[in-house]
C-alpha cells in the first residue's frame, strides 16, 4: 500500500491567537504539528504495522507512508515530527506564491501532489486547529474523484480486497461506510492515542527524505493560489472587547440560591 497523510503546521492551539490585518498572525506564536493530524499519522502507522511481516512500519513492511504538507520553510519542523513518529518520507510544497491560500487552493495543491503519487489511501485529521473549517478532506475527495470516508471513529483496511471500512459519528447518528481503494479518510481524535516519537525514531527521522516541490513542479500557476486567488475576502477583523469578569460570590451555603436569583434577574429562567 502507498499511504499519504496530509499534515499542517499550525500555531500552538494553547497559545492566544490574534489577527494581523486580514490574516492570522503566525509570527508571534510557536508553530507545531496540528494535533489532529497526529491521529491520522498514528492510524496510518497502525494499519501498516498490522499488514507488515515484521509488524513494524518502515522499508521492511512493504508499505510506504508519505507525509504531504504545504507551508513555509519552517513547516519542515512539523514534518520532521511526523517522520520521527514513523512515517517514511515527506513531500513539502513550499512556494512564496502560496501565502494566504484558502481551503480551495490548499485542496488543489494537495490533490495535485496526491495525483502524482499513485497512492491507495490518503489520511487527514478532521480539521486544522487554526482555520477549523474541516472542509479540506471533502474537497480533496471531490477533486480526486475518490471515495470520501470522513470523520472516522474507527477504520478497518482489507489490503487483499483493496477495501476500507469506517464507522463515523455525526449529528445524525452512527454510519458504517465502506469503499474500495483509493479513498480519502479523515479520522477524529477518539480513534487512537498518537505515539510519542522515540529517541530511535527522532534519530532515524533526521535521515529521511523531505522532497521540496514548488508550484511550477506541480503544474499550478501562481494565479490559482495564494491570497489574491482566494474566493472569500476578509473585510475586517475586530478584536472584541474582552469579556470582563462579572460578579463572583463565595458559597457559604447560599451560593446555589444566589445563582438562581441571578438567573431569574437575567430572565433566562
Amino acid at each position, binding site marked *: 500500500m502507498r499511504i499519504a497523510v496530509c499534515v499542517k503546521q499550525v500555531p500552538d492551539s494553547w497559545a492566544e491567537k490574534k489577527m494581523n490585518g486580514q490574516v492570522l498572525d503566525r509570527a508571534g506564536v510557536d508553530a507545531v504539528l496540528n494535533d489532529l493530524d497526529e491521529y491520522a499519522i498514528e492510524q496510518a502507522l497502525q494499519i501498516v504495522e498490522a499488514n507488515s511481516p515484521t509488524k513494524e512500519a518502515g522499508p521492511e513492511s512493504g508499505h510506504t507512508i508519505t507525509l504531504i504538507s504545504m507551508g513555509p520553510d519552517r513547516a519542515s519542523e512539523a514534518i520532521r515530527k511526523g517522520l520521527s513518529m514513523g512515517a517514511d518520507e515527506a513531500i513539502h510544497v513550499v512556494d512564496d506564491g502560496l501565502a494566504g491560500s484558502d481551503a480551495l487552493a490548499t485542496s488543489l495543491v494537495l490533490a495535485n501532489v496526491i495525483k502524482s503519487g499513485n497512492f491507495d489511501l490518503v489520511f487527514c485529521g478532521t480539521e486544522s486547529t487554526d482555520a477549523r473549517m474541516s472542509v479540506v478532506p471533502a474537497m480533496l475527495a471531490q477533486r480526486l474523484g475518490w471515495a470520501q470516508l470522513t470523520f472516522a471513529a474507527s477504520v478497518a483496511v482489507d489490503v487483499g480486497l483493496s477495501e476500507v471500512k469506517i464507522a463515523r*459519528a455525526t449529528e445524525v447518528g452512527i454510519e458504517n461506510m465502506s469503499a474500495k481503494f483509493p479513498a480519502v479518510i479523515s479520522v477524529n481524535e477518539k480513534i487512537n492515542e498518537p505515539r510519542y516519537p522515540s529517541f530511535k525514531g527522532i534519530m532515524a527521522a533526521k535521515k529521511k527524505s523531505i522532497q521540496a516541490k514548488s508550484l511550477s513542479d506541480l503544474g499550478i500557476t501562481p494565479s490559482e493560489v495564494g491570497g489574491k486567488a482566494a*474566493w472569500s475576502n476578509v473585510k475586517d477583523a475586530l478584536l472584541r472587547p474582552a469579556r470582563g469578569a462579572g460578579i463572583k460570590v463565595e458559597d457559604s451555603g447560599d451560593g446555589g440560591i444566589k445563582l438562581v436569583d441571578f438567573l431569574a434577574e437575567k430572565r433566562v429562567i
Partner: protein
Amino acid sequence: MKSVLILVDGANGQVAKSTGELATFAKRIGEVIAVVFDPSLVAGLGVYAIDKVVVVGGFDATKFSPAPIAESLAQLITTKSASAVLITSSARGKEIAGRLAVISGSGIITDAIDVDADLITTQSVFGGSTSVHANVSHGTAIITLRSNAVEVIAASTTPTQEDFTPTISDMAKLATVTSSQPAVKGGRPELTEASIVVSGGRGTNGDFKPVEAFADSLGAAVGASRAATDAGWYPHTHQVGQTGKTVSPQLYVACGISGAIQHRAGMQTSKLIVAINKDPEAPIFELADYGVVGDLFNVLPAATAAIAAKK
C-alpha cells in the same frame, strides 16, 4: 430578487430548529428555497419563512452521504440561479459545503454566526476574542451557519412544492453507507441546539448526577470538558471545546471546569456564562458573568432545589 437555497436538516418527520434559523437568515437576502432530501420533513416546513420547497428524489440520499447531496445542490444552484446556499455548520454540513464549493466553483465561508442582506458574514474566531467580517467573491456564496446564532422568525406559509431529480455521478457513489444507527435521543435537547447548556469537568470527579439534575431542572443539554470525557466519565459526543463541539447557548453553566483555552474555544460566545468552581483562581471566572466559588456538590443541589421552588 436573489434566490437562496437552504439545506433542510432533520429526521423522522422532525425538522431541526437550525433549519428555521437558516430560513430566517435567508429571508433577509431574498427568496427562500428549502431543499429537502427526506420527504417526511416537508410537512414541518410551514412554520418557517420559506417560499419554495424542492424535494430531491431519484436516489437514496441515506446510502451515499454526502457526495450526492453536494452534486444535487450544485445542479439546483444552476437551475434556480441561486446567489447563496446556506447550510448548518455541522460536521456533515461542512463536508457537503466543501464539496459543493469545489463542484460549483464557489467561495466558501464556514461557521458564520451572522449573514446580512448583502451576504456579508460575521464569524467569531479565536475563542470569541475576534469578530471577522467576510464575503464570498467568486461564484455562489456557500455559507455554513452555526446553530443558535439567530432568533427564529416564525411564519405561517404554504410554500410551493416541486420535485427535482438530479443526475448523480458514479464518483459520488464510491463510498456507501452499509448501515446506520440514528443518534440516541435522550430526554435532553441536542447539545449544539440547546438554549441552555450545563457542563461538568474534572471537579465532578466522575459523578455527573448533580450536573444532570441541574440541567434537567432547566431543560438544558449536558456538556463535558475534555478532561471529563477523556477520563471516561461522560460520552465524547458531549465534549465541548476545541476538539469537541462548539456551543453558543443563551446560558452556559460550567461546573468544576477550570476553563483552559481549549474549552473556552467551544463556549466563549455563549450569551451568559456562569461558573461554579472550588478554586477562586480558576481561569473560567475571568469570563463568567456570574461565578460561585464553592463545591459543585453543594451549590448545584441547592440551585436545583431553588429552581424547583420557583416552578
